[in-house]
């Protein structure tokens, strides 16, 4: 199997803490991988390194056989865990902004997704609720024809109806040619989406495997396993 992500000995130190401590992780093409862990486990640091927003202290990170840089940014579509649009923008402005910025942006797909999400193009970014924000941001991110989608907490803090819409959009957008990395601590809501899960604890990988195999071997859902690994 071809690999979309290859990580070797990845370490990230901040001034007096170690966020990631020697992580090895390969991800095959066409897979949906869940990175699970509580706040402060290193999920967002890992993802920011993959997205090219942070540099590692040590170790190798390759995406589609390239070191993180201009090329990898052009094939990675990244959903940050916070709003990345300007408040003065309308949804329509946001679409134009994205289509100016990314060559692989598919306007038609974006329009379909926004319609699916029931978002009106004339709304202003500062008029949106938390759930609408997530829906808009996700629509933009999924409308790029990227090789790798990285979604950081896509359903955090949204209501159940918006959550279902977001899950639907993720499923409908998924195809064998692209891969997805999704972080979440809402394991129960998202576990059925994952081919594979990685449990991150204090900057190291505690457990990883095929989601279905883990269920079979342990007779437990991923959510229950998660509670076992991270529970006190």
């Amino acid at each position: 199997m071809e690999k979309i992500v290859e990580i070797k000995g990845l370490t990230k130190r901040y001034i007096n803490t170690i966020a990631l401590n020697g992580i090895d992780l390969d991800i095959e093409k066409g897979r949906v991988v869940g990175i699970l862990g509580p706040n402060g486990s290193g999920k967002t640091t890992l993802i920011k390194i993959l997205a090219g927003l942070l540099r590692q202290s040590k170790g190798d990170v390759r995406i589609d056989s390239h070191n993180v840089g201009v090329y990898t940014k052009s094939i990675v579509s990244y959903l940050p865990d916070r709003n990345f649009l300007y408040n003065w923008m309308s949804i329509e402005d946001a679409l134009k902004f994205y289509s100016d910025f990314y060559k692989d942006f598919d306007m038609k797909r974006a329009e379909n997704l926004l319609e699916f999400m029931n978002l009106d193009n004339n709304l202003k970014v500062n008029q949106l609720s938390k759930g609408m924000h997530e829906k808009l941001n996700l629509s933009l991110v999924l409308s790029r024809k990227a090789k790798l989608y990285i979604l950081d907490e896509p359903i955090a803090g949204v209501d159940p109806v918006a959550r279902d819409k977001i899950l639907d959009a993720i499923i409908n957008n998924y195809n064998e040619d692209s891969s997805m990395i999704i972080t979440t601590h809402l394991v129960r809501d998202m576990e059925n989406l994952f081919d594979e899960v990685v449990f991150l604890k204090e900057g190291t990988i505690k457990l990883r495997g095929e989601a279905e195999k883990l269920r079979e071997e342990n007779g437990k859902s991923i959510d229950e396993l998660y509670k076992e690994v991270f529970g006190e």
Partner: protein
Amino acid sequence: MEFTDKLPIYIQIMNYLKKKIIAGELKGGDKLPSVRELSSELKVNPNTVQRSYQELERENLVYTQRGMGTFVVEDQKILANLRKEMAQEIINKFIKEMKELGFNSDEIIDIIKNYRTEGK
């Protein structure tokens, strides 16, 4: 469909479809929903649904026609067998649990008989 914790998701989806076949909601020759439709409906990874379909095909309950979709087999014998098998599974589970509660076989039979008369 509600997922329980004990079983892999693909097996739960297989059981869900088997029940529909037995109940006649899906008849011999009927087309199953596409992988994408079902994964969207159940909020499950399409690869998982695909695996369920492959396993059902391995059990000869469905067949795939290239470019057309996946269909329930029309062989009545296979469908009748499936019905028996699933009934057997439920009965095994029921009897096991009744025995755990301390009922013996005669008592269990009595309870079922009484249940039937009550039901009428």
